[in-house]
Structure formats: structure tokens, C-alpha cells
């Protein structure tokens, strides 16, 4: 099939009517409501399923729920989680994480770790202002995550 070029008529050839139409549109937007959210002063509404920084959940005794099964570390697509397991002092529980670190610089906030966890021991908060001054400060350890 051959497509035919549509010939411009004389008005279109001198570009003026289309330009005027376009200028009408920009003028309308000039007076319309602005969509800018003035960020540090005004914050966007955060929805319940927002995926921000992680948090480790605690059980009734105030200990971490995590049993160091390492499912989260396995599923994590960016290998951001490091777990070192140890024998738990609690007789009910077999293992607990001696060391639990999430490298937020690597994390892509996909939430797979939350989905994978059989104990619902890890969750995501709505905290998203994570900037810090050093790389080390952005590797969150167990104490920080339990807070």
C-alpha cells in the first residue's frame, strides 16, 4: 500500500492557524492550576502499600520475630541482605539472626523480602527520606531495623 502525503493547504503552508491553535493551548495552561508539590514544605500523600525503608518486627516478648531462615536473603534480587544465624537463647525458637544487615544502597525496594518471609518478621515502612553522609551509615544493622 502506498501512503499519500497530505498536501498542506495554503493556510497550513504559512503555519499561522496551527500556531495560533497551539498558542491557545499554552495560554490555557498558563492560567490553569499548577501541579507542583512544594516538596520539603508539602509532602505527597503516602498510600498504605508504600514501600519505604525496612523494619524488623518484634514478637510479644520484644524479641525479633526473625528465625534466620534466610529466605529473604535468597529471594532478594539485588543481594542486599546479609544474615548471620546463631542458636537462639529462646528454647521455643531454633535460630535467630546474630547479624542482620540490609544495604539500602543496593536495595531496590521491590518488597520481595517481605513477601518471602514465612514469619512476617520483616515489613516496609513509609520512611523514604533516607539520605545520609556516608556509605557505612546506609548499611542498616539489626538494631537500627528493630527500632
Amino acid at each position, binding site marked *: 500500500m502506498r501512503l499519500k502525503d497530505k498536501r498542506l493547504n495554503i493556510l497550513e*503552508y*504559512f*503555519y*499561522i492557524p496551527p*500556531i495560533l491553535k*497551539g*498558542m491557545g*493551548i*499554552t*495560554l490555557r*495552561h*498558563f492560567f*490553569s*492550576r*499548577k*501541579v*507542583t508539590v*512544594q516538596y520539603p514544605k508539602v509532602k505527597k500523600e503516602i498510600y498504605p502499600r508504600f514501600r519505604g525503608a525496612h523494619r524488623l518486627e518484634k514478637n510479644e516478648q520484644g524479641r525479633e520475630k526473625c528465625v534466620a531462615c534466610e529466605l529473604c536473603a535468597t529471594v532478594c534480587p539485588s543481594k542486599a541482605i546479609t544474615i548471620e544465624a546463631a542458636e537462639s537463647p529462646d528454647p521455643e525458637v531454633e535460630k535467630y539472626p546474630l547479624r542482620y544487615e540490609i544495604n539500602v544502597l543496593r536495595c531496590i525496594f521491590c518488597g520481595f523480602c517481605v513477601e518471602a518471609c514465612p514469619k512476617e518478621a520483616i515489613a516496609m515502612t513509609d520512611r523514604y527520606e533516607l539520605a545520609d553522609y556516608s556509605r557505612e551509615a546506609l548499611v542498616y544493622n539489626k538494631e537500627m531495623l528493630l527500632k
Partner: protein
Amino acid sequence: MDWIGLGIIVAKIVFFLLVGFTAAGYVMNLAERKISAFMQDRLGPNRVGFWGLLQPVADIIKLFFKEDVVTDRASKVIYFVAPMIIAFTALSALAVIPLTDVLTFFGRGMAIQIANLNVGILFIFAIASLGTYGAVLSGWAGNSKYSFLGGLRSSAQMISYEVSMGLSIIGILMIFESLRLNDIILGQSPLLWGFLPKWGIVVQPLAFIIFLTAAFAETNRVPFDLQEADAELVAGFHTEFSNSMKFGMFFMAEYINMFTSSAVIVILFFGGWQIPGISTAEIVSFFISLGASEFFASLFTILLQLGVTFAKIAFFMFLFVWVRWTIPRFRYDQLMNLGWKGLLPLAILNILATGLVMVII
């Protein structure tokens, strides 16, 4: 020449430099960003000062403190001279722009205009085409392919559009029979059929459209900013002037050129300082009838006329920005087509038609 006359001229030059730097450099810098932001449903700069009003100050400070990088292979002399040429030509074109009518102060006729040249409009054209050298030379001096292409495009574009620009105003010159800007403005004062001011746009509508289009090309504004073309040529002819005050000069010269072009459009087609149907003498006598002394009557009149001129110019500056944020850039061949096959024949046709009508009437 007496000392007072000399002092007045110096004061006028200072005034025009101030207008050039503040109105063009400062206000337009901010206005361009605010208007573009508003047209894109954003707020634009609003952090520095109330409503972002001090943003240009921050920019100027930044420009002054930036390191002045000179590329190793640049032609050093031209590299330094080119931005000066651009800024110099942009500022000197302001010299013949009349912002008000001649008024009497202490028995001395005065207008806010540096030189009342009898070839005012030609002077502006001459200076404007000199400005092209700045663009071409800076494109050459940077010794980079992008700036070189930008410089080439700028010369080609200027030549094509200056022709139709010059031809488009011939009809105006035929009707008002003068090259002196003040005479052209005064020639636009009579009313046609009692209500329509005999403005250039009324008697020469086609010339207005051609001139406006060519003015966009002359000031390198979108849709004819092919020599900058940031999507294709990084920043065109001033790519190598990436920072420092040299870049600031290009930036400012663009806005001053915009101011000059708007002023010329206002003078040729919109009656300059005039309020339709009211002459300068009538305004002065109106203020005197209100009880003002002769000096203050003149002062108020001059301020009023200044306000009227600036309002008209401001509208066209807004138009420049408005168009920039509405339509995309022309392709190079389209640009040449429009210039040589569209505007040029139209301009010649306009001269013929004007001549015929003038012979018949």
C-alpha cells in the same frame, strides 16, 4: 555642545544601559523561566527571594564565580572578542530607539532617546547584522564541530531572513516617507475613518507578519533557533563558552536583542509611544488643566509615554516567550524554504501592492 546637553546625553546612555541590563537581562531571565514553567503547569523558580524574584541575582553570582574554561585549541583572541561583539552590538542598537516623544524641560527639548538619527531604522538593521559576526566568530573560535555548525547556520539564516525583513518594511517606509523612527511614529497618529489609528499593522498587515517572523529568526528564538538547537548541537555557537560571564554575555545579548526587536515592532507597527487618538500636546495640556506646572506636566507626560511604550514592548516580549514554549523548531530545509520561497516573494508582493494602492489613492 554645552555641558548640560552633554550631561543629559550621558544620563540617557546610562538609562538605556540600565534598561538593557535590567529589563532585558534581569526581568526577562526570570520572566522566561516563570512563563515557561506556568505554561507547563509548573511553578518555576520560587526559592530565592519572594516568589523567586531574586533568582537572577543568584545566577549572576554563580556565573561570576565559575571557572573560566578556555578550550586548548580555541583561537584565543577571537574567543575573547566574540562575546563582546555580541553584547556590544546588542546594546548599541538601543541607541536610536525612541521611548517617548520630545517634551520641553526648562526650554530644552528632550526625549528618552539617545540619538535621533535620520536613518534610524537603517542603523538598527546595520547593527543587527553586525551581531551575526559575534555568532559566526564564536562558532569558529570554539574549535568544536557543534559550535562551528551553529556558526554556519547562523550566517545562512541571518542572510536569508535579513532580506525579507528589509523588504517587508519598505511598504512602511513608502507610506510614512521617512527613515527617522520618530517621523514614522508621528506618521501613525492620524485616525482612519475617525476610529482606527493609522498604525503600521492596520495599513501593512502582511508586512507585520513577515517582519514578526523575520524578527524571530533574527533574534534566534524558537522556532528559528537553529544556531543553538540544543537538541542537535549541544548549545550551538556558544557550546565552548560553557560557563562564566562570557556565556552570560550571550545570554544577555539574546534578551537585549529581543527587547530591540520588540521595540522596533512597536515603533513600526503599533504607533510607538502613542495612545491612539491623543497627541502629546493634548496630554500635556490635560495635565496643565489639572493644575500641574509646566515642568510636572512634561514629566508626567514623559512617564506616561514611557509606560505606554514599555507596556507595548512587554506584550511582544511575552509573545516571544509564548511562541518559544509553544512550537517546535523548524528543520533546516524548512527554514530556508520559508525564508526564500515564502517570505521573500510575499514581501516583494507587498511592496507592489502598496505601490499600486498608493498610486490609485
